[in-house]
């Protein structure tokens, strides 16, 4: 059993503060993904949980034990590093069994644990090789195997898939998900890839500049982003964000066009307020190319600049309120540039953010 709890954790390098007092409660067996742009402090946070970095302020607990002063070896954690960090002078078998050997486990136990882990990860044929003789994907699996042989309280992953090609990454993502259901352990996983975050996480923690911006399930952060940063970061393509001001239940954009205030927000927002109107490409679709869905629809004519056919759908590039935005076309047909299409916008799936604070205006 191991919950992980961070209370007002701060990290300073000299005078430079890079993590500004974050709070995070992770439940037993939960799969939490830390996601955010480069340099936002994800690795630093993970390394503080591991004990590889000192904590400048605050408290970290694993289970019911405060671990602030404990060295990594006393925390019963496993970590998978971004560049694998295998022991180059040991064979794969020795790499996998190293932690057990250090823990002075009986040789037969070690052999069995290593064989089991190798079996799970398909490493059985590679056990006698050294890391230098492995491909990137194989090294990645060894790093993973080294983490799972010991049944730790917490798994820590620091961008374990970022060095792999797209296909292998998808495959390993599935493996990790399976692994989690098999070994049932708390996992903290760092990535800057929002797809990885969405597919793996029980809960996503979105970080920016050393702060936590939002914590929630993948659906929550996708459907109810707390600010424009999250809205732009989560989801692909990123959410369309258009600045305008509110006038009589409409948001009027700089080019004079307008959209109705979404139903969730009607009556809550004063006239003249500067807002950002946000919606995803998935909720703006040309008539006749929508998914059969009901809801509050609003028709709008858009001049298409370009279409990007993806096969089963096309992404349409167009402009609204002086902003480049994207729409999605199901059952696509060829679209010529400059063509005007009438599109349907699912108003109840739209968002409003304050233009100055960037915060969501949802109550």
């Amino acid at each position, binding site marked *: 059993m191991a919950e992980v709890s961070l209370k007002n954790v701060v990290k300073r390098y000299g005078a430079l503060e890079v993590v500004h007092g974050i709070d995070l409660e992770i439940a037993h067996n939960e799969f939490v993904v830390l996601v955010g742009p480069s340099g936002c402090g994800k690795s630093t946070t993970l390394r503080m949980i591991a004990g590889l970095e000192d904590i400048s302020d605050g408290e970290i607990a694993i289970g019911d034990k405060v671990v602030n002063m404990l060295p990594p*070896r006393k925390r019963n954690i496993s970590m998978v590093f971004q560049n694998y960090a295998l*022991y180059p002078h040991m064979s794969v078998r020795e790499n996998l069994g190293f932690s057990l050997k250090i823990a002075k486990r009986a040789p037969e136990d070690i052999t069995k644990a290593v064989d089991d882990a190798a079996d799970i990860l398909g490493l059985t044929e590679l056990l006698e090789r050294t890391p230098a003789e492995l491909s990137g994907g194989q090294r990645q699996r060894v790093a993973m195997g080294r983490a799972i042989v010991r049944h730790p309280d917490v798994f820590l992953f620091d961008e374990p898939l970022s060095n792999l090609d797209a296909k292998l990454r998808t495959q390993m993502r599935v493996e990790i998900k399976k692994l989690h259901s098999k070994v049932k352990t708390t996992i903290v996983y760092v990535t800057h890839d929002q797809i990885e975050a969405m597919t793996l996480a029980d809960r996503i923690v979105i970080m920016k500049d050393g702060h936590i911006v939002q914590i929630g399930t993948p659906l929550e952060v996708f459907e109810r982003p707390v600010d424009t940063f999250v809205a732009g970061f989560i989801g692909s393509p990123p959410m369309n964000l258009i600045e305008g001001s509110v006038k009589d239940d409409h948001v009027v954009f700089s080019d004079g066009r307008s959209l109705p205030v979404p139903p969730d927000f009607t009556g809550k927002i004063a006239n003249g307020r500067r807002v950002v109107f946000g919606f995803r490409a998935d909720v703006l679709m040309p008539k006749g190319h929508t998914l059969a869905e009901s809801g509050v629809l609003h028709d709008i004519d858009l001049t298409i600049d370009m279409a990007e056919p993806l096969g089963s759908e096309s992404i349409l590039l167009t402009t609204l309120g002086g902003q480049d935005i994207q729409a999605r076309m199901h059952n696509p047909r060829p679209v010529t540039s400059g063509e005007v299409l009438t599109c349907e916008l699912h108003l109840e799936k739209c968002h409003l953010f304050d233009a100055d604070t960037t915060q969501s205006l949802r109550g």
Partner: protein
Amino acid sequence: MSRFRRTIRENAVPFALISPAILVILIVVLLPLLFSFYTSFSNYKLIRPDTLWDWIGLRNYERIMGDWDFWVAFGRTVLFLTVALNLEMLFGLGLALLVNKITYGQRTMRTIMMFPMMFSPILVGFQFKYLFNDTIGLVNNALQALGITHEAIPFLVDRWWAFFSIAFAEIWMSTSIFAILILAGLFAMPKDPVEAAKVDGCSNWQVFRHITLPFLMPFIYIAMTIRSLDVARAYDVVDVMTGGGPAGRTELLWTLIARTAYDDARMGRANAMAYVSILLSIFFTWYFFRKLMDARKHLGAF
């Protein structure tokens, strides 16, 4: 045959161009080598040049086989080499680990560390000869002034103290070779496996033992190779400090060879000894080089 001629003709220009280099090597290296090898089969005495043509076959070598003094010097050299290399390795490792921890003034420390290497070995010999002298030596005076000893320790006279003193000088002079090479290894050492080991449950000592040390081994073996060649032909420090004496108590191979060649003027005999001694150097070089190759084999992924 015609093929050989053709090769010669086609490569005439390159051959012509490297021939001066070959010639110089022949004259400077090969001829003296052949000459000394020849003399080891002769009864050549420096003071009687005509003895150069006095061919005596393997007699010099046979004599050496039965020469107790030679084998004592041989054994002492091996012991000296073992003691000096191991202690230099330990001190060098310790020094490198300490310097590696320093964050402020590390450059200065590294330079200071090199100082002993900058002195001529002869001067190092003199320096320690006077430090360890039993009447005027600084060490004995200090020990007595502090009341630690009441009589002078015969640092350069007693068999074991003299061995200790010479080894001390040698180690003082050359520990920095190990320190520098090991420090280079520490600088090149990747951080990740160390962190992985910490997470895997290693204490600092275990990290050092299982991760850092294997990584440093190639660097240590390089230093060992260099130093084994150096120490196997140790001469200057020993000659200055004790001259191999008193009464041959600190005789090493090369002080013995020098004495045979120049004091006794028996050049043929000395050359034969030198050829036997070289086997020692060759053995150590081969041994450490093999160790180096073994240690390097696995480090491809570091």
